């Protein structure tokens, strides 16, 4: 089991609110997974380079050109709340 305190700290980092039932369940599940993935400790990785990108294509660059893009109304049509051409959110800065 990982501690309730540690689990809640993780949830806060992930911006997740958890129900009581989820807290108990995840304390168990995450501990079980962490125990399982411990098997990787058996692998000798000294001198191993971490994975290179799956494609060895290097950096992909392009010209910085102005091209047609989505109209603002289209881009904002999924916004939960909108004012003019802005997304509206709860107050971000305290008075």
């Amino acid at each position: 089991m990982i501690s309730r305190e540690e689990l809640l700290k993780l949830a806060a980092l992930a911006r997740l609110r958890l129900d009581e039932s989820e807290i108990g369940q995840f304390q168990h599940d995450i501990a079980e997974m962490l125990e399982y993935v411990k098997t990787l400790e058996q692998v000798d990785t000294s001198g191993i380079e971490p994975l290179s990108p799956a494609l060895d294509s290097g950096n992909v660059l392009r010209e910085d050109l102005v091209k047609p893009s989505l109209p603002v109304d289209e881009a904002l049509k999924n916004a939960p709340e909108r004012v003019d051409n802005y997304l509206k959110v709860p107050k971000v800065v305290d008075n």
Partner: protein
Amino acid sequence: MESALELRRRIAAGEISLDSYYEALLSECESAKARFNCLTAITNQLAMATVERLKTNMKNDRPKGRLFGLPVVVKDNICLRDYPTTCASKILENFVPPYDATVIGRLIAEDAVIIAKANMDEFAMGSSNENSAFGPVLNPHDITRIPGGSSGGSAVAVAAGLTPMALGSDTGGSVRQPAAHCGVVGLKPTYGAVSRYGLVAYASSLDQIGPLACDVESAALLYSVIAGHDERDSTSAEISICDYPAEMQKSVKGLRIGLPREYFGDGLDGEIRTSIEAMIAQMKFEGAEFVDVSLPHTEYAIATYYIIADAEASSNLARYDGVKYGLRAKNDDLLSMYTNTRHEGFGAEVKRRIMLGTYVLSAGYYDAYYQKAMNVRSILKREFADVYKVVDVLLTPTTPTTAFKIGEKSNDPLEMYLSDIYTVSANLAGVPAMSVPIGRDGKNLPIGLQLTAKHFDEAVLFRVGKAVERLAK
């Protein structure tokens, strides 16, 4: 289900009327949706508009695309303009993308008819399709069993005969495992072979879009349409598309086929083993040469996979914050907008993976978990490269068992994760792999055989897959 090529020929020749074919098909979709819960939406309007366009093209003798008149079902994590793309999640319930994924554009350019969006595990996280906000998908071979996941709806759409071809996505086996459980062909292309522009991201270093199809020939056709470089996906590669029909004419004579011993261990179901051994004997008779090989770090693949996939998921899914699109829950302030939205919007498995991913990336644990997993991934990738110096292709089972019962593993996440034991390595190494049906077990459930090739050698998968399909009949 007849092959996509034969169906296209009959439609293009006017032997089948587009109107009556699609009228019947769209009503069949309704019925399959009710019976198997395999579809999240039927795109009636788009389908009928496409049919009208194709009819005009026929009347005016315009050139016909390679998918002319063919129905396609698309997994609901691939953006289709003006139709909901939900990822089977409450958090995207009302999300309507204002653009098409690149693969959609390619289908439309070849005159395909998109008929439906397919149900899936939420955000493609699952091996059973039980993690959908729309409820579980049922396996048409036995409705008390799972169809596999996460592309379960796409596999069922093909297995139920709605379409010869569907699109899925495969992060750790999500095309191949449901293909095996539903008795259809499923291909995970090489990482970079197919553009992911418009695919909702789960684990970006592993995700690939791939075809599910009624036979190898149809899978090859769909692959040849969707593969290739796209400037909107910087991870997509410049590749050459082979003449796959010609490849599929070739026999397996002289090919060196590797049997990695780690894939034939204790966990493998006896009937699957017997079925694969019988196929090997037939292929030997046709002149294929079999070689015993080893991929010694296979036993670490699941642990490596879940660390990396969950780490990437925790980062990718940070975007669901209630600000720009999707659900915004009732809130008192900025922080509670985030936490309430994510609490209400995400299902249990998604939360579990975000939590584990956050853990392995957090200060103090990063080196022990994430960095370690990336190092082991390096070793796995090198092992594949080494084995392809000796063999042309690897032959293994796709899954350790046939389709399990609904609910059988849903309370034990680790047990569920272990059902991906034969499929995750291809994603970690970035190599292409395909599942081909080879028969049924004693419960009449489909058995899948997996072929794995080196980077960008889909041609050998189609060649060997075609032979396997013929010999299995």
